[in-house]
């Protein structure tokens, strides 16, 4: 099949750009470990209150792990438990969340923490909180009439000031 000379240049340039872009994404993902949520642990969503860690939602300081805090969130129509999260600036935090009923979203506005919460699956994301301030947590997957009533707040505080 005949391709025009300029068309060849255009396609080579375009495809090369895509390949470079994908390589950058791939290095970010597989070399630096920057994956979106892909938690594969499962549970019985109807008995979620009996499962650790969801029997005790909240912020927990942990020792001997790759992260300093575990933030355990249980979502259900139409609220998050706990309703407010406070973590110190610079902490490495693992968010562990699930849904007790339908699909919910867990989006911390103004950050790239954004996961779907699916009944029966545990969603996980590890990140370093490196910006001071209050960040609104919203449900971004339609879950019923109370969908927009469903929110909570992440407070990133200066550890020196709060003492």
């Amino acid at each position: 099949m005949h391709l025009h000379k300029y068309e060849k240049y255009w396609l080579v340039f375009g495809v090369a750009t895509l390949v470079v872009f994908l390589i950058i994404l791939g290095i970010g993902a597989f070399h630096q470990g920057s994956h979106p949520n892909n938690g594969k642990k499962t549970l019985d969503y109807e008995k979620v209150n009996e499962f650790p860690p969801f029997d005790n939602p909240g912020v927990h300081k942990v020792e001997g792990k790759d992260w300093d805090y575990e933030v355990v969130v249980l979502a259900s129509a139409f609220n998050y438990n706990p309703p407010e999260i406070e973590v110190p600036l610079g902490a490495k935090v693992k968010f562990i969340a699930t849904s007790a009923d339908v699909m919910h979203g867990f989006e911390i506005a103004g950050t790239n923490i954004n996961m779907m919460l699916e009944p029966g699956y545990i969603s996980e994301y590890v990140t370093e909180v490196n910006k001071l301030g209050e960040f609104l947590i919203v449900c971004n997957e339609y879950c019923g009439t109370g969908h927009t009533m469903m929110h909570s707040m992440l407070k990133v505080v200066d550890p020196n000031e709060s003492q």
Partner: protein
Amino acid sequence: MSLNNNLTKVDRRDAKLAMAHIYVAFIALLLGGLAGLLQVFVRSGQFTLPAGIGYYQVLTVHGVLLGLILTTFFIFGFQIASVSRTSGTFTAGQRRLGWIGFWLMTIGTAAAAIMVLLNEATVLYTFYAPLKAHWIFYLGLTLVVVGSWVGGAGQILRYAQWRKENKGSGERSPLLSFMVVVNNLMWFVATLGVAVSVLFQLLPWSLGFIERVDVALSRTLFWYFGHALVYFWLLPAYMIWYVIIPKVIGGKIFSDSLARLSFMLFLIFSVPVGIHHQLTEPGIDSTWKFIQVVLTFAVIVPSLMTAFSMFAMFELRGRELGGKGLYGWFKKLPWKDARFFVPFIGMVAFIPGGAGGIINASYQMNQLIHNTIWVTGHFHLTIATTVVLTYFSAAFWLIPHLTGRTLTKSLNNLGNFAAILWAIGMTIMSSAMHIAGLIGAPRRSDYSEYGGAQQAYDWIPYQIAQAVGGTILFIAILIILYIVVKLAWFAPKGEEEFPVGEVHANSSETPAILENFKVWLVILVALILFAYTIPIYDIISNSPPGSKGYKLW
């Protein structure tokens, strides 16, 4: 007799079938547009829906009517006319398939719409299991899909008949019919996913035959279909760009083989990519998510080919008309002709639209904008500007052609005016959506101040801007509907051309492989099996207990 003769008329009986589809499409435009207007008003915080109507109900109506009904019905109207025009009049049997398909789709639409209006199916258009709608809603959507299979089969049979009748003549099959067949095949393969989910999961579940549904599986099956759906909308727009516009501007199709190759690439790369809609979901391995991201990017290649082809064709024509210098040809194009100007705006919108799509599909970059209103801004550029403006431009000549009327100069100018309004309204609305999404505003959400959070207050000015843009868009819809009504019933009687481009003389011979559907379907099936077997096996074997149904609206 050459089928490319200007005065070749679509057979009256085929025209009637095509018009039936087009009427439903434009009724959907009116109702769906109205639902969109109500939505932007509510979201601005300045307006409350009258008692009894829920925001999410209106949202469901808007999405279903414009995303599924307007598009599918218009596409079928256009495709029926295109096959009849380029492959020849349908046989009675083929036409009957068209009518059966039409009525199945229409009855299904009505059934689903009634359940939505009764507030029995406020589960939005992606189904959102374990939210459970009334079984009639799922059955209605099944009828729409089955109807599209029956109607699509009629179109494919007509093309197959042409191939059979012209066997050994060495002639290429009519390009426009070929493209219709590619689009239908893609649709059949893609809708299998949603059909499996509805028939084996959602329908028996809502009827109470089974108690629980595997949510992760239903979402994966939905998105197997859901991404190809956007190409089902896009390919008819590409048919118009590749085949119709060259004739409208008096030029030639840049390359027959390039057009066919790009359609085949769309066919094989549109289905095995749906997991890029599920990047932030649990239960799917990151390796497979990344593989589907790479496959998603492959589909950019035929888009680049199309962009080149379009501008090459414009330049060739502009120079033929005496355009000099690097850009002189640009001024020579027929800017006052709505059949060219309106889809041209659509092409321009596809540049930021396509770039936004690349961002959405970009693995970890998706986390910033996933389920924010950025995504809504994105597809209001691609489908709601690029695709629908191209459809409208086709309606401007297709409707009078089929009804035996003419597109008058004043209606033509009104069409251009509506498209300019559309561009203004959409620029305001879509930009506001993109920015609000980047700073975190969620999509598919009612007006809320989120307990008085500062971030939520920062979103409100953009929501007001969306209402301004949306209002301008609704005015444009009313103008378009006025033009459609005039063209269907009141414009002066006469002959309106169904423009079908001819291939440029310099274009080389089309390789036979491009017309060999078997080869491409084998590649398609192999790619789908590669991209989906392990993720679906993983979901099934690692599955938590299924979910019971909820009705939370």
